[in-house]
């Protein structure tokens, strides 16, 4: 869901019949609602995994909206939400100095060990 969805573009463009409740378009409200990133832990999953994003008026409502949008089909047993603005991310500009140096350090991979078959989660 992008931040600049316009009512004219899609969602609000559906014709309204006499029975459909007509609300004034909350165009300013949508811009006020912060973007949240949603992480869900599946039933068999070991960790929370990013599944998408949504807009919500506050943290509590974001958890609820995440439940309604992202766990409708038994996908999860635990939800984290975080404001997208609170995530500090690496910049694409520093990609090479950040990640290239690990490319040739084969000795950092534990590939020289024999792992028994019954060791899980490897």
């Amino acid at each position, binding site marked *: 869901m992008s931040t600049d969805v316009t009512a004219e573009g899609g969602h609000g463009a559906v014709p309204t019949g006499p029975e459909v*409740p007509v609300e004034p378009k909350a165009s300013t409200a949508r811009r006020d609602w912060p973007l949240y990133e949603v992480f869900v832990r599946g039933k*068999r999953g070991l960790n929370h995994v990013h599944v998408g994003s949504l807009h919500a*008026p506050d943290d509590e409502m974001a958890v609820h909206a995440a439940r309604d949008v992202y766990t409708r089909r038994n*996908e999860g047993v635990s939800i984290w939400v975080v404001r997208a603005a609170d995530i500090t991310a690496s910049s694409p500009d520093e990609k090479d100095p950040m990640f290239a140096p690990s490319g040739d350090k084969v000795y950092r991979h534990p590939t020289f060990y024999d792992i028994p078959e019954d060791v899980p989660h490897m």
Partner: protein
Amino acid sequence: MHEETVYDALDHAHGGEGHWAFGTGFDEPLAGVDTTVPDGVDHADLGTYCLMLGDDALVLAQRLTQWVTAAPELEEEVAIANVALDLLGQARLLLARAGSVDVLGRSRERASASIPDEDALAYFRDADEFRCTALSAADNGDFGQTMVRLLVAATVRLAVFARLRDSRDPVLAAIAAKGVHELTYHRDHAARWVLRLGDGTAESSRRAQAGVDAVWPLLADLFTATDVERRLAAAGVAVDPADVRAEVHDVLTTVLDRATLRVPPWPADAPPRGRLGEHGPELVALLETLQGLARQHPAATW
């Protein structure tokens, strides 16, 4: 073993064919439940009671569905649709139960033999055979009023279902046990919005209060038992709606106080007209939309 996404995990858990997208891992709500009607319980009473509870859910589900494509926010639209689908699921089980004890009214004469009882009851009864309350049938109003109505409806239904878990009818008890989790969420969702609207901006508070004032008169007939409910309550099968009054008042007062909204005077008890099939024009209009397709194509399947 570590899946890339939760969807991969679901897929792996269900054969890897991507079928989870159509719903997997669900429990059959009535699996293993004894469907025998308990001794001494009148079949017609039981079926009629199931229609009351089922019609409330069916009609409110239809009302909530009217927000789909028109909700103020996409996230909220999905939330409202989820609530509607929960209610529709409850309606299906309850109408099927009514059909199983042969409470079908005139629906079976009109419906094609190929459709199940629950569909015959939903699509081929006229308004005067519906037993929902005016609270379920009322128009949505604006978003604030919709949330106030949902708060009231979910509060009443949760109070009834919580007690109904001990019903002597094992099917009703199982439906109630499943429904309590759903209704707890519905009530919570509506309460969160009423709190935020009531204690939000001047405009949201004004609209929420107008919603409360519009919904409050619909509380009048919620706590008056019909003869059917009275007989079944005495038999340990149904809940006398008068028994949930105190809890409902308590919950609603608490939420509205916290939302800084004014609690209007509680309306005087009124006869349960909706439960007896007397409805206003808004239910007729709603049923035209709900039933139109099925009545035009009575043997259609999808």
